[in-house]
């Protein structure tokens, strides 16, 4: 370096190669590493979106296999498809049972039902299609059963006919399995002896199996041409020791259909407690069979517009929802809900109107596993829908036209239809894949009418023990819970954090400040699981046994601080100034302690006064009057109104009058004024409360209702702990960053420290303080462990501070470990995470932008 003569070229040669390589390598590594980390961090959002996206995609549906059936004179009444969608069985009115290979249409033999030449006039099948019933013109009924059977075999017989990938021997089908074995699949059918139910022809019937494994029951409902419905119920009891089965059969006559209505369709629940009969004139009759000795026709309604008749009807799984399809193309879902008007305390209510077909609906088929539903119309359109989400998932079209029989595959992964044009009968098989049929943006964020609910609402209930259970996945209660928890936490934390920050920055002795600030910041390093544990196992029981004292503390603490302040004013100015540092700080601490002690000591008295001696019973609405609590609620607004009102109206006059009194006198007057204001505010609040109560208003039932040990109040306290240090630190930094010369100027102009703090420092630092609040908000929104532990995790929507809640984050923590990968629940939990991500990202970005602006402004001051 010291040799000025060395030329640059010479210098370059002397740079060691290793240095150059290291520089190059470092450059490359740091650049790729840096960019990589940044990309990775943003990939989080992309990944979340990618996982959530399929929820709202229409699943795939429409890939069609078509094959022609040789036996074209078959008119299938019903079809059944096996769970691998290899074979389709069809039954017709003459008792013919036919089995077809779906891919090729090749027929296979199956045992026909021998009706003795008779032709069935009416037909019914249970939801899953295995139990069949045929009604005849002579008034007899025959029950039948068809069922697919399968077994895995290692070797197959020789001389089989090749059917695509499969082999067939005329009676059974052999399908290759991935591990080299074969699945043998065949159909079994059985027909029972005729049962004589009526003398006239049977027009409509339904047949159900029910009961328990130990006491299976079978019920048959048949309506004859005279409009007389008859119920036949066979209950089998298995003797526990002898294993001998005894069957008891009883028959009941149901009240006849009124005014000569001709039945077209009948439906019966498995428990045989409800029966529905559709008539040719478009009416629907509902029978209540809960007491079999006294069956009653309890409801008659016309579910479709005049002129339209019910052309198909079925239950959805669980038999709580009734699907009615009309000759006008309507497909509606009806719920039986408790009602005043119904004869049995129930009434049918139209809950979902699905997208109507253009023409008359010719057939319906419901899923065995969920709320999927197939409907076909006379023009050959086959639509796959979801009853709860009202979504039309796939619109399939049979190119030939009319669909004669329709089935949804047992695994909901395919649709099978027999379709006819002129004399050619074809099997159509569609593959459908609808993993998230039940979710749309509307079901996740809007009200949904679920089975058994009185009205559309927001519900989160992802699992239950029941078989026919439908997951209810609305994020709204969780978002509500998140907002509620955040609100209570912020309501608790902000006054403390901001008050503490202002006091620390502006009024605290420098030496105390050096100790106080790290102490509060230390709170930030308390793991939230510890806070949650303390909240749930220490704080919650404590609050529960001291509810009244806790409520009183919110009143007692500010009041005792104010009282102390008014008394402090009575001190001579010089002494006040001398004691203004540490002694005053200690005094305030003592007053806080005193306020808390007062609250605890007066708690029982307060409980008797306001809550009639028992807060929990009062909250349940069992005892006490509404007035005292309303007084409590109205006290703060009425105090503010009175204080501001007197200052506005008489402030100047008062000041003029008291001017000659001097400091001590002024302070005494001030104290008296405050006490008078308090008394007046109490009176005003009481008057208003009495008036409201007279009008029938009660905070119970709307604002507060019931008490849960782990509640929003406890969560507010605990989450306040998590939020306070963050808000405090950032706000205090912002306040402390206000340049000293502003303060000096203000004080120099004669302003008091209080005026300086509130009129000069706070406005200058406002954007920094705002950023602090926003960052605290972001923390509260996403806090997980505290809420999981202390909130009770009930996804309810009420503002009650004594009620539980469930937040988005807690819900994820509780349910994601159990969620099956890529299921609807899994994706919805990812959606919750995305919502949380978006909320906090927005809030934090806002805070960051405001903070940067503040920093710039502070620098320019």
């Amino acid at each position, binding site marked *: *370096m010291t040799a000025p003569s060395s030329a640059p070229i010479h*210098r370059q040669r002397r*740079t060691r190669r290793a*240095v*150059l390589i*290291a520089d190059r*390598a*470092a450059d490359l590594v*740091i*650049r790729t*590493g*840096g960019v990589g*980390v*940044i990309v*990775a*961090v943003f990939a*989080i959002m992309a990944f*979340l979106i990618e996982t959530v996206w399929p929820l709202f995609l229409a699943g795939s549906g429409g890939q069609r296999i078509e094959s022609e059936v040789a036996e074209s004179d078959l008119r299938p009444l019903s079809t059944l498809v096996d769970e691998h969608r290899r074979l389709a069985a069809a039954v017709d009115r003459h008792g013919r049972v036919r089995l077809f290979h779906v891919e090729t249409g090749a027929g296979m033999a199956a045992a026909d039902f021998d009706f003795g030449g008779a032709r069935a006039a009416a037909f019914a099948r249970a939801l899953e299609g295995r139990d069949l019933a045929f009604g005849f013109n002579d008034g007899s009924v025959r029950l039948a059963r068809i069922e697919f059977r399968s077994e895995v075999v290692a070797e197959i017989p020789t001389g089989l006919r090749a059917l695509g990938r499969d082999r067939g021997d005329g009676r059974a089908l052999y399908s290759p399995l991935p591990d080299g074995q074969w699945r043998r699949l065949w159909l079994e059918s059985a027909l029972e002896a005729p049962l004589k139910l009526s003398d006239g022809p049977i027009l409509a019937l339904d047949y159900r199996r029910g009961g328990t494994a130990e006491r299976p029951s079978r019920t048959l409902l048949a309506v004859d041409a005279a409009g007389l419905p008859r119920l036949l119920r066979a209950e089998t009891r298995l003797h526990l020791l002898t294993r001998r089965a005894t069957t008891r059969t009883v028959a009941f006559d149901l009240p006849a259909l009124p005014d000569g209505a001709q039945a077209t369709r009948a439906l019966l629940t498995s428990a045989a407690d409800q029966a529905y009969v559709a008539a040719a004139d478009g009416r629907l009759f509902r029978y209540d069979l809960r007491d079999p000795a006294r069956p009653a026709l309890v409801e008659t309604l016309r579910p479709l517009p005049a002129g339209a008749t019910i052309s198909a009807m079925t239950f959805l799984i669980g038999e709580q929802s009734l699907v009615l399809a009309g000759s006008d193309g309507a497909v509606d879902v009806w719920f039986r809900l408790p009602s005043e008007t119904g004869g049995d305390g129930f009434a049918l209510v139209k809950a979902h109107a699905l997208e109507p077909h253009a023409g008359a609906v010719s057939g319906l088929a419901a899923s065995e596993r969920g709320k999927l539903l197939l409907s076909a119309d006379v023009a050959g359109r086959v639509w796959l829908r979801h009853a709860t989400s009202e979504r039309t998932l796939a619109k399939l079209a049979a190119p030939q036209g009319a669909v004669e029989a329709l089935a949804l595959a047992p695994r909901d992964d395919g649709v099978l239809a027999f379709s006819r044009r002129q004399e050619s009968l074809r099997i159509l098989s569609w593959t459908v894949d609808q993993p998230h049929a039940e979710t749309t943006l509307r079901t996740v964020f809007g009200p949904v009418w679920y089975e058994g609910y009185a009205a559309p609402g927001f519900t989160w209930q992802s699992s239950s023990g029941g078989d026919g259970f439908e997951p209810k996945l609305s994020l709204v209660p969780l978002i509500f819970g998140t907002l509620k928890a955040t609100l209570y936490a912020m309501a608790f934390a902000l006054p403390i954090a901001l*008050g*503490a920050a202002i*006091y620390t920055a502006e009024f605290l002795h420098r030496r105390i400040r050096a100790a*106080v600030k790290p*102490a509060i910041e230390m709170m930030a*390093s308390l*793991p*939230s*699981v*510890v806070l949650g544990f*303390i909240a749930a*196992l220490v704080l919650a029981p404590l609050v529960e046994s001291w509810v009244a004292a806790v409520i009183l503390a919110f009143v007692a*603490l*500010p009041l005792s*601080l104010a009282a102390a*302040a008014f008394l402090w004013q009575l001190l001579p*100015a010089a002494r006040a100034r001398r004691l203004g540092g540490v002694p*005053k*700080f200690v005094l*305030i601490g003592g007053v*806080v*302690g005193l306020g808390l002690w007062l609250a605890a000591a007066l708690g029982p008295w307060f409980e008797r006064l306001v809550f009639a001696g028992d807060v929990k019973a009062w909250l349940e609405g069992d005892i006490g009057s509404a007035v005292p609590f309303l007084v409590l609620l109205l006290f703060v607004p009425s105090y503010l109104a009175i204080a501001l009102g007197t200052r506005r109206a008489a402030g100047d006059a008062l000041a003029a009058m008291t001017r000659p009194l001097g400091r001590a006198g*002024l302070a005494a007057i001030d104290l008296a004024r405050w006490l008078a204001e308090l008394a007046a505010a109490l009176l005003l609040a009481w008057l208003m409360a009495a008036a409201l109560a007279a009008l029938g208003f009660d905070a119970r039932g709307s604002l507060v209702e019931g008490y849960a040990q782990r509640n929003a109040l406890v969560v507010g306290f605990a989450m306040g*702990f998590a939020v306070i240090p963050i808000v405090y630190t950032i706000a205090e930094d912002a306040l402390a960053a206000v340049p000293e010369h502003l303060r000096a100027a203000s004080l120099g102009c004669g302003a*008091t420290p*209080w*005026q300086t703090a509130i009129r000069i420092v706070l406005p200058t630092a406002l954007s920094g303080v705002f950023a602090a609040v926003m960052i605290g908000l972001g923390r509260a929104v996403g806090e*997980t462990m505290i809420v*999981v*532990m202390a909130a009770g995790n009930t996804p309810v929507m009420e503002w009650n501070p004594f009620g539980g809640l469930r937040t988005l984050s807690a819900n*994820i*923590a509780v349910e*994601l*470990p159990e969620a099956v990968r890529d299921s609807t629940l899994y994706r919805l939990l990812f959606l919750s*995470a995305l919502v*949380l*991500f978006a909320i*906090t*990202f927005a809030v*934090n970005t806002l805070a*960051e*932008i405001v903070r940067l602006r503040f920093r710039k402004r502070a620098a320019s001051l």
Partner: protein
Amino acid sequence: MSASATRARPPDLAAGGEPFLFGLGGALLAGLFMILGVLALILWNGAATFWPRPIERVELRSGHTLAGEPIRSERFRPAGSAAESRRTLYRVGNYDLYGDEFRWVDEAEIGRRDRPGDLVLIERLEWGVFIGRLVGAETAGRALDPADAEAFAAVHAEARRRWRGMRALERDAIAEVNRRIERERLDLRRLELRHGAGSAIVRAAADAAESRLVHWRAEHGRLSERLERLRSEDARDTARVVESGGREVALKLSAIVRFYPANALGPLGAIRVYLSRWAEFLSEEPREANTEGGVWPAIFGTLAMTVLLSLLVAPLGVMTALYLREYARQGRAVAAVRIAVNNLAGVPSIVYGVFGLGFFAYLAGGTIDALGFAESLPNPTFGTGGLLWASLTLAMLTVPVVIVATEEALASVPRSMREGSLACGASQWQTIRRIVLPRAMPGILTGLILAMARGAGEVAPLMLTGVVKLAPELPIDASFPYLHLERSFMHLGFHIFDVGFQSRNSEAAKPMVFVAALVLILLVAALNALAILIRARLAARFRGGQF
């Protein structure tokens, strides 16, 4: 305050804002009280839990006698009575006999109470504590006088040693043999997957494996036999104890973790019990559904995860900050990235957990399994939560902290130093390595340690990515390949959640949770203190080094 007698203007009390000042001060003090309250609560409960309490024998008016540690007493209103009364909660132990470990006793029911010196508290491996009197003991068929404390203690120590040997045999030796056998099966399966079942290679390998398996099975039989022998030996060492109601029970000596005469314990004895309990807590494994025993696996898991996390987060965070500050062109894009990185520090941790589960465990782990561990499918190896995924998730969570801290540290290195170095002919990397990084090191380390502290205290994302309530094996052990990144692990924070919320008896578990909370807080506080210390040290070293 502005009032002064010499002033022409009269004093204006409103300008002083005294009520508001008291309000602000009250807010600050309320906040301070809260913190101190919580800290005191944890410290007191955590520190006092292990202190041996006296045992009271209580004779009820009904003639029934019970003995237990008084836990706390409170006022209550007996059912159907208007007057308040006091009641005391006793930890009576003997869960196997009473069906409950705690009992409330109404003061009004108590006839007489005393503290007899012969009552012992016995901590057992199962069923919690036993409270009663020691009436006899037996070792290898001969009777032992329990009054001979020294001999009894020696026999007990021997039984415990034997028990530890049995556990080691079961946990280590037999488990190792099982692992070998399982590995043979997996090796074979891998070959099958590669060459097809029934191929010549697989058949040859199967034959070779069979010969090895014979050896291992023999080894397994031998070890099991030894274990059986030890067990039968162990069953012959028993102590006979009588509970306060007079029922006599025989306890296996090896199942007694610790026993002490609670009322005849001097201060020294009490301290010994106290310290031995702490030692057990810090070094032993949990038992009784985590409500008793120690938390060593949880401490180890927390530490292992934190170390792994810092190994991941330090280079990534520093690299990113170096890129943002030293390499990238400062412009709108970098400013936007900086804001975004800042914000990521505020994204809820559970969101990272969701990402970790979906991306790391399921997607990345699933891919690794399909490529490298196909033989053990459908059992996932990496395709489920584990130490690696949890650490990576927390690394993503904490990397913004390190980036922000490092950037700030880099920004505080004066520009003149960089320019001087470059002007002397140093390359950019040389400048960074020799000039910038050393000066920025205090800030970087502080950020790193704060990230570790945050990671150590975080629970929510871990619940999704690999923490379990009871891990049978530590993530680092003597079995090849020694570091098992795919294993799920225990964590102190999750331990607190689990014991406090999922255990059968939260009253019994509460003290242990307080201790675990104390340990976790101390761990986090130690990391924080270390950050402050390092910052102070390094700052002092470079003070005056700037120009």
